[in-house]
């Protein structure tokens, strides 16, 4: 069900927001996907009650009134636990609201609960969560992708109409692809990050997971714009235009051949819809992976320094001296992948007065420049979202290099600060395969409008 028809069903009294909640909570329980770390039933029923009143009165109905949604557990909601999928914060209750949550609440949306995720958003399979692995709604032995795996699984399994996630190098788009849903990462600076626990501040973006691009656009319009708390916000509106020319790649390294086949088929469908497809060459993927890793690890090592066991989170006060206490808290509180990245980032920053970090910025500029040049000839760039099909649990987790490859088609969009969206293209052996569209910087509105049209046109053909 999409946002519009759900709202209509409320207006026409086919069901109430409370009844909707009953159904969703039952389904969450029955499905056992482990896609939620916390269910905020009290909050939800209270909101649903208020929403119901508005629908009864037929007065003051809000934009997302009574729409159930979920949020990744690295966003702050006052009075609720915010764990970031980590033991470190397993008991942390946020005393303040993130801007994103605040805006959704003001728009009448109803929070179902907080989604499971890779620890501190570090991972691509949701296997690093302290709260256990999330299962793919299409096949429970498969991973949902990550790090916003709980969010994508929740939307894919109809546990929420939409979910808010974070995307630092593909953390929304890749799980969206694995769970057969829409995952949108806007241009950096469109949606306030206030209340999103930072992983890599210069790359983190708040994004949206939905069933349709149309819904995505609606939620995006509620979330976007300055809030006075995030100084990196710059919500420039593009000139409205039709996007006609699409760049695609004829060759791709390391890609699963079934994925690539679906990609090529999708491209020809677009051609039939009247789009002009132009072959392009992407030769900066490897560079982008190096820049991405250095930058995220450096920033993460600093962003995660605040978890020191002093004011909140995991604490061990007795017996130790100060250094011993830090070691014990951080040693116990963080998982393996998080520690791996903190240590690497610390090393990179220590080396030669931050030379690696500075270099990663130069590479970012280079990549952004190359993308800008590409977009002189095309309006959209199309790529597979992931090199691989959804994989089985435990299949790749012990191979960090393979895991890192999973970001390789998505991270460059974060590095170049451009918008990108993954939508489902097809299925292989009943496993969903997503296709990614990358747009020009600040061209988010045109990207969403075009994709919305494409999605509807292709549905007609089915």
């Amino acid at each position, binding site marked *: 069900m999409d946002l519009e028809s759900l709202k209509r069903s409320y207006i026409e009294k086919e069901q109430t927001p409370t009844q909707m909640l009953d159904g969703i909570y039952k389904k969450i329980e029955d499905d056992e996907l482990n896609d939620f770390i916390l269910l905020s039933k009290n909050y939800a029923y209270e909101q649903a009650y208020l929403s119901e009143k508005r629908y009864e009165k037929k007065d003051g109905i809000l934009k997302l009134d009574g729409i159930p949604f979920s949020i990744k557990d690295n966003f702050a909601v006052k009075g609720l636990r*915010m764990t970031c999928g980590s033991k470190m914060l397993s008991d942390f209750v946020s005393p303040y609201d993130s801007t994103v949550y605040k805006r959704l609440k003001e728009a009448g949306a109803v929070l179902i609960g907080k989604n499971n995720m890779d620890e501190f958003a570090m991972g691509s399979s949701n296997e690093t969560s302290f709260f256990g692995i999330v299962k793919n709604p299409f096949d429970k032995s498969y991973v949902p992708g990550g790090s916003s795996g709980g969010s994508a699984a929740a939307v894919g399994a109809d546990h929420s109409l939409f979910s808010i996630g974070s995307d630092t190098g593909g953390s929304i788009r890749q799980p969206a692809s694995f769970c057969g849903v829409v995952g949108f990462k806007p241009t950096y600076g469109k949606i306030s990050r206030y*209340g999103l*626990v*930072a992983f890599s*501040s210069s790359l983190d973006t708040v994004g949206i997971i939905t069933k349709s691009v149309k819904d995505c656009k609606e939620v995006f319009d509620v979330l976007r714009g300055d809030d006075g708390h995030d*100084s990196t916000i710059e919500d420039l509106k593009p000139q409205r235009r039709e996007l006609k020319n699409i760049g695609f790649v004829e060759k791709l390294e390391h890609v699963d051949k079934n994925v690539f086949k679906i990609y090529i088929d999708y491209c020809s469908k677009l051609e039939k819809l009247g789009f002009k497809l132009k072959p392009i060459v992407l030769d900066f993927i490897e560079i982008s992976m190096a820049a991405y890793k250095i930058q995220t690890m450096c920033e993460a090592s600093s962003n995660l320094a605040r978890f020191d066991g002093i004011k909140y989170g995991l604490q061990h006060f007795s017996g130790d001296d100060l250094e011993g206490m830090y070691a014990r808290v951080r040693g116990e509180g963080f998982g393996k992948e998080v520690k791996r990245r903190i240590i690497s980032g*610390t090393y990179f920053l220590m080396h030669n007065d931050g030379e690696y970090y500075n270099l990663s910025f130069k590479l970012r500029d280079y990549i952004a420049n190359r993308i800008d040049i590409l977009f002189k000839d095309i309006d959209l760039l199309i790529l597979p979202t992931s090199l691989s099909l959804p994989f089985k649990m435990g299949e790749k987790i012990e191979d960090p290099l393979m895991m890192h490859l999973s970001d390789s088609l998505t991270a460059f969009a974060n590095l170049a600060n451009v918008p990108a969206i993954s939508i489902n293209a097809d299925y292989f052996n009943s496993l969903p395969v997503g296709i990614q569209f990358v747009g020009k910087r600040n061209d988010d509105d045109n990207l969403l409008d075009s994709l919305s049209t494409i999605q509807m046109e292709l549905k007609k053909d089915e």
Partner: protein
Amino acid sequence: MSNFVVNIGVETHIQIKTKSKIFCDCSTEFTDKPNVNVCPICMGLPGTMPTLNFEVIPLALKTAIALNCIINRISGFARKNYFYPDLPKGYQITQHKFPLAHSGYIILKSGKKIRIRRLHIEEDTGKMIHDQDENSLLDFNRAGVPLMEIVTEPDFNSKEEVIEYLERLQRIVRYLDVSSANMESGEFRGEPNISIRKKEEGLLGVKTEIKNLNSFKAIEKGITFEIERQKMLLDGGQKIESVTMLYDEKKQTLKPMRKKESISDYRYFPEPDLPDIILSEDLIEKIKNTIPELPEKKVERFKREYNLNDEESEIICQYKDYADFFEKSILGIKNVKRLTNFYIREMPVILKEKRMGVKDLPFDSDKLNALFKMVDEEKINLNLAQNILKEISSTGEHPDIILKRAFESDLSEDDLKNLIIQVLDENKKEVERYKNGEEKLFGFLVGQCMKKTKNRFSPGKVNEILRNILTKK
């Protein structure tokens, strides 16, 4: 003992006078209650972000301009990463490669130029307190309070130079009204770094830093102790290690803190949550125009214009509002020199007694000006003026009223005549000389009469009657 050359550089942290903290809306007001001026942002809770309080920029710029610095048109924030319980985020937001300003100077009285390497803005950390039971307690009221850090080159060769520099710096920031700069409340903290070398050696020695110096006296002592310590080490053939020394006010000693971390350990990198600070020529020009006459200039001008000596001018110019009060109160006064003592002695006594600044006095400069005019026009003598000042300072009344009341005496004009005759009898010699043409002695006789009458009659009246009697005689 060998001959040593001492080189000292100074880092000064100055609290910038803003209502709210540098990256959140919390108040900067000093309070004894711990952890009341805090919020999720300055406590570094996960997910929070800093936003720059733009109030700090013009204030820091003003200082940079007054210190003759070059302003960086683009400057930026950086993270200084280290772990300490009073540091909420595990890093301090400061400026590193691109400070707000650099390459300034202050000139000492001797004419010696002290070069200022850089001026940057940053956030303060919290405070860790140890109680009697050896518990460590944390207070985050100060965390996020805006600071300027001003770093000099190692240009000082004595503690006297350091003190003079700090006093001048303190006076400048107070003149600019960018900081209250009180040392006791931590708004102005000087940290010297000291190295000594044998005279014949060209290169600077290994430097050590002294922290926890909360008064000028402590700074003087700290420097003295550290120079002695280093001399002893070098004389004994030992090497100086780069350490941070902690001054203990109670024990009057220095003890080494942790080994000074080398710079790469701070893992500086640009703060991704804050955009660069870009300054327009327009803004810089505007701020330049708000800079008042600086203390050094004022001291010189007062010496010139009002014929003050160096010490007098320094005392009067110590605080800007004091100097302004002085200047307004002597408007139209011909003989300023005679009245300066009011600002060296009487006024400081009154202010000290009342524990207030000039702006809180119950009278304004106009009233003082009226009083000074009476002296200038020889209506009253200095003695009476001092007494009237005392009265104004508690009642706030206009000097005219006080004077009038003083002369509403119970004595008649005949009583006055008698008193004057008495005075003339006591000063026969002077009366003789006056009559022989020494006109200026008339003033002396008036003075004597005023004394005798205990200021109960107006100088005009005394004048009139005295002249009458003298001509009759």
